[in-house]
C-alpha cells in the first residue's frame, strides 16, 4: 500500500508539468486547479498501471474527460473578476484577450457554417449536447431514434466540425 502511494506520488511529480501544459490550452480557468482534479480522479480510480507509459495513457484519458466536463459545466460557473480599471474592458470582450477573441470569432464562424450545412438531425444532436448539456438518452427520445443513432450523429458531427476547423487552419487544442 505504501509502495503504491509512493509510486503514484513519483509519477505525479514526473508528469505534473506536462499535464499543466496540456490543460493550459484546453480548459477554462486555472490549469493548476484542473490538474489537481485530474490527479484526484486518478488517485481515486487506483488504476493498475504496470509502467509509466500506461500511467501516462491513463491520466491523459482522465484529463480529456475532464476537459469535456469543464466545458459542459462552463455555463453554471460563476467567475469572479477583480474590481479595477480593466474590468469593464474585460467584460465587454467576454473576459478574453483581443487575440483570443479573434480566434473565438473565427471558430464560431466555422462551427456555425458547418452546423448549418449538416442535416438538421445531426446538428440538433450536437447543439443539444454541447449547448444545452442534454443527455444522449433524452436526445434520442426527442428525435425518435435509438441512442446508438444519436451517438453516431454526434460523432459524425464532431468529425465534420473538426475537419472544417482544420481546413481553416484552426486546429487549436490538438496535442
Amino acid at each position, binding site marked *: 500500500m505504501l509502495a503504491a502511494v509512493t509510486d503514484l506520488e513519483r509519477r505525479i511529480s514526473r508528469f505534473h508539468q506536462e499535464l499543466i501544459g496540456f490543460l493550459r490550452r484546453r480548459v*477554462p480557468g486555472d490549469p493548476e486547479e484542473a490538474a489537481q482534479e485530474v490527479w484526484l480522479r486518478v488517485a481515486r480510480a487506483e488504476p493498475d498501471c504496470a509502467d509509466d507509459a500506461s500511467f501516462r495513457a491513463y491520466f491523459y484519458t482522465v484529463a480529456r474527460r475532464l*476537459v*469535456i466536463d469543464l466545458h459542459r459545466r462552463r455555463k453554471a460557473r460563476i467567475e469572479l473578476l477583480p474590481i479595477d480599471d480593466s474590468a469593464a474592458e474585460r467584460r465587454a470582450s467576454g473576459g478574453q484577450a483581443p487575440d483570443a477573441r479573434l480566434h473565438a470569432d473565427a471558430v464560431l464562424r466555422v462551427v456555425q457554417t458547418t452546423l448549418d450545412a449538416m442535416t438538421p438531425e445531426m*446538428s440538433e444532436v450536437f447543439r443539444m449536447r454541447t449547448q444545452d448539456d442534454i443527455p444522449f438518452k433524452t436526445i434520442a427520445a426527442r428525435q425518435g431514434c435509438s441512442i446508438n443513432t444519436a451517438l453516431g450523429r454526434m460523432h459524425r458531427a464532431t468529425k465534420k466540425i473538426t475537419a472544417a476547423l482544420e481546413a481553416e487552419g484552426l486546429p487549436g487544442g490538438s496535442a
Partner: protein
Amino acid sequence: MSEPIHTCEHAETTTLLWLYGEADEAHATHVAGCGACTEVARQHADLMSEVGPIADRLVAAPSAEGQVDPLPAPANRGWWIGVVVGLAAAAAVLLALFGALGMPGDSVTSPAPDLVVEAPIDDAARHELAEALLDEAFGADVDADFEALYDEFDALEADLATL
C-alpha cells in the same frame, strides 16, 4: 485529418457516453488501453476545448427549427425494400452512364446517332459526369440520404429484431 481505424465496438458508443459523463467511470481503463477509443476521446476533447467557449453564441439555423423529421421506426422489413430499390436505381444510372460513355479510352457518342464525337474520355471526367447524373437523379441532397442510411444501419446494429 487522418481517419482512425475504428476497430473497437465501444469507440462510438460506450466511450462517447463515458466522455459526456453518461457511463461508468471504470470505462476509463478501457479507453486508456484502446487506440480507437483514445482517438475518439482526443477528437471530442480537442473539439470541446474550441467549441466550449463559443457554444452559447451558436444559433440554430431557421430551417432547422421545428422541421426535424424523426426517422421512421424500422418496425418491419418494408423499409429494406426502399433501400434496395434506391441502390438498384443508382446502379442502373451508373450502368446507363457507362453504357453511354463506354470503357476508358473508347470514343464518346452522343444520344443522337448521327453525331459521333471521336474523343477519349478519362476517368476523372467520367467520375465528374457520374456525380452530376447522380445529383440530377436523386437531388443535391445525396449526402443527407446517405446519412439517413448510416442512421438506419446504426439502428439495425442496436436492434436486430427490426429485420
